[in-house]
């Protein structure tokens, strides 16, 4: 069956889809194909986006495939043994053609065009006067960026990098195309996928304020260990002063980076109390001596309080008034697929499918424990990119789930399922366990699994590029 999946008319389409999943990185594509994946199991979560590049790759893939098929048919007609060789070679030739085409396209067209774009953006950046804030971290970057945008916009003209665009070329495109000279604050989200990325991005944007949102084992295929990620983050100190750096209270971060440390309980002399969380949001009071701010945010969970008070501190530094800050924070709402609550026929679903690290899982499970519900159901495939930490992270996840007293755990079947199960067993989990082999079917039929009063949390999704 696995071998047969390389010989169907859909094979070129699936290969192009996977190229797109790897952002057309030819070496990642080649590494993946060397694992000899079952192509019939691909595309359970997404579909090929028909961009111009995807169409070109599809045309190449199918052109080569059709030529090969004709070759095989012709040789079969003339009863030549070459037909068998041709048949065996079809997938190899298609894979090789796509790899070479992608490599050439990247080297000859894409890379020079991107270099040109970056040079142009650097020139434009010299003319922009806005305060530049860098948002760095293994998790919580997009949340922090959106919080900064919502709160600071109450008193400043703010521009932020769009969506998940957190690599150099997307920063350059954003500066060239979308950022006006009148912007007073520019917020850059820094993505890190390999050592040196943070330094490269900081060299481009030259920030004066930085927020380090947290560290967790992600992209462990590129980083040897957590220390190396922390070291990468710490290079921000070469660009930003200590008093303008804000760091989540994690020992690994605070031991390597100097700055203002924030947590859900305090930042400097500002302390939080009267904390409560519902499906409508989180409330708390922020106090410093006689000064007190009553804060409401639409974001769910105590883990959001730390980032919010960091943003409040930055807003105060940039001169926003307390009223503006309170109004701004009240406008913050859950972001798409990040602890985003929605109701389904009387049940609550907390969509946290963009969560991809153990710290986020911990926060999500803490929230699930805190929220009221008749039945509590937790759905996850586990985490990708955990490298050497894979076993320990998933054992920990199993233990965390066990400690949350859930009624049901649904695990999307993949290579880490057995490790989570081991963690559940170790944690003496006593609820129901379901192993689901078809995530898309499960997600699209939630209304059949849920009843009024249930709370279901979806944490992380498992890309097709992982086994």
């Amino acid at each position, binding site marked *: 069956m696995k071998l047969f999946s390389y010989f169907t008319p859909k094979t070129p389409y699936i290969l192009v889809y996977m190229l797109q999943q790897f952002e057309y990185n030819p070496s990642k594509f080649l590494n993946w194909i060397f694992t000899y994946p079952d192509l019939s199991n691909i595309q359970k979560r997404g579909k090929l986006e028909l961009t111009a590049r995807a169409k070109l790759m599809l045309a190449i893939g199918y052109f080569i495939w059709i030529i090969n098929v004709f070759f095989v048919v012709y040789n079969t007609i003339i009863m030549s043994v070459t037909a068998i060789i041709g048949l065996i070679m079809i997938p190899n030739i298609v894979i090789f053609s796509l790899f070479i085409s992608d490599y050439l396209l990247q080297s000859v067209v894409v890379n020079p065009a991107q270099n040109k774009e970056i040079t142009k953006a650097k020139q434009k950046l010299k003319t922009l006067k806005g305060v530049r804030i860098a948002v760095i971290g293994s998790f919580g970057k997009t949340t922090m960026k959106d919080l900064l945008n919502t709160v600071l916009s109450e008193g400043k003209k703010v521009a932020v990098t769009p969506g998940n665009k957190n690599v150099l070329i997307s920063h350059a495109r954003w500066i060239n195309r979308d950022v006006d000279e009148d912007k007073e604050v520019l917020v850059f989200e820094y993505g890190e996928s390999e050592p040196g990325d943070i330094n490269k991005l900081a060299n481009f944007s030259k920030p004066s304020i930085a927020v380090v949102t947290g560290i967790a084992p992600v992209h462990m295929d590129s980083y040897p260990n957590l220390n190396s990620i922390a070291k990468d983050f710490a290079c921000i100190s070469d660009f930003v002063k200590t008093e303008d750096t804000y760091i989540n209270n994690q020992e690994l971060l605070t031991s390597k980076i100097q700055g203002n440390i924030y947590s859900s309980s305090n930042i400097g002399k500002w302390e939080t109390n009267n904390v409560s969380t519902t499906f409508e949001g989180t409330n708390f009071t922020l106090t410093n001596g006689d000064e007190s701010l009553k804060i409401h945010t639409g974001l769910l969970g105590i883990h959001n309080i730390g980032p919010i008070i960091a943003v409040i501190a930055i807003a105060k530094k940039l001169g926003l008034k307390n009223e503006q800050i309170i109004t701004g924070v009240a406008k913050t709402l859950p972001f798409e697929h990040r602890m985003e609550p929605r109701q389904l*026929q*009387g049940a609550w679903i907390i969509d946290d499918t963009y969560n991809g690290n153990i710290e986020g899982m911990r926060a999500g499970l803490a929230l699930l424990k805190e929220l009221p519900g*008749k*039945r509590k159901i937790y759905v996850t495939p586990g985490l990708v990119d955990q490298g050497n930490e894979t076993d320990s992270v998933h054992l920990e996840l199993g233990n965390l789930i066990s400690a949350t007293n859930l009624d049901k755990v649904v695990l999307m079947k993949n290579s880490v399922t057995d490790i989570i199960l081991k963690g559940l067993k170790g944690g003496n989990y006593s609820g129901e366990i379901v192993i689901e082999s078809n995530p898309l*079917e499960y997600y699209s*039929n939630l*209304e*059949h*699994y*849920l*009843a*009024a*009063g*249930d709370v279901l949390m979806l944490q992380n999704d498992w890309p097709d590029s992982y086994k």
Partner: protein
Amino acid sequence: MKTVAVIFGGRSTEHDVSIVTALASIIKPLELTKQYKVEAVYISKNGAWFWDDKLKDITLFSSGMIQEYLHKTQPISIQLDGGMSLVKSSGIAGRKTIRKIDIVFPATHGTFGEDGSLMGLLRMAGVPFVGCDMDASVLAMDKVLAKQVAESNNIPVSKYQKVYRDDFVRKSADVLRGIESSLNFPMFVKPVHLGSSIGITRVNSTQELQNGIEVACHYDSKIIIEEEVPNLIEVTLPIIGNDQLKPALLEKPLTKPEDFFDFETKYMHGGKGGKKGGKGIKGSQGYSELPAQLDDELYKKAEQIGLNVYHALGCSGIARVDMLIDSKSRMVYFNEVNPLPGGLYEHNWRAAGVSSVDLVQTLIRLAEEKFQKQQQENTMFSTNFLQQF
């Protein structure tokens, strides 16, 4: 993996409702459990049986393509082999596909399906099946018998009269006079054996009564005429269980007595207030108040009467008990029982905290438990009778 046959369609006026019940409320959640091999068994309007995975697709029915399918396809047969098997002929060299059925999930409403006929066949076959057994189905589907059983168990029922079609045809004037002498207008005229409110008329005069009976006689040979309960609150209660009963929520349809639940209101437009929205929940039977807003005492009284009726009629698996409440006198009257609620009343169960998947799994479990219990009953008796010959 056990094989569950979901039987739907049938020779009934509720044929179409049955298709929706089977496909949306039974087959889909059963397949999502991934614990059963689900076989779709469709009975056409002329009584032929078909078995095919294609029959799980609602578009086959909604597009009208079902007619073409029936025209091209050979009906199947049933093999009673100490159990039940579906037998499909391939049409090639006499080859047949045979599928042994472990459990049957009847999804047929009304005559030949919900009235005990199918249950009788399944009992004969010796296969476990979901829902009420043959005797409870017979009682539940005869509105007169059901009321008589309720009365004998001290459960209040509204005033009613029964009429046989033959009597009405032969001496309609006497019949009408007899009804008017014992019941007051307004009244409801209903075919005794039909569900989904088909053939029901609310009447206010002798002429309307005559017309109403004529309409009802078109559907059934036995007619029931009920006196309207004043200050009416109509409620319904889905219940599951064999011995240990679990009620869902008491539900109140949001209709006035003058536009009572006819078929159109129930199934065609999501209720008469359906398009306008409004409070309540849109279930298989249009908009309703869920749970019914009654004070605690009245709610508990109605719930208890519902459970008593379920028990008195010997229901098992699932059923829905309809009741009528006089809001001034606070009297709760048993009205009728539906042994296979449309769509299993899954909207109500969901609101009561039971998901569609959990509901069908529970019903399968109840069916197996009931069957096991029946198997323990001795139906054989050894005698020397044959040795005399």
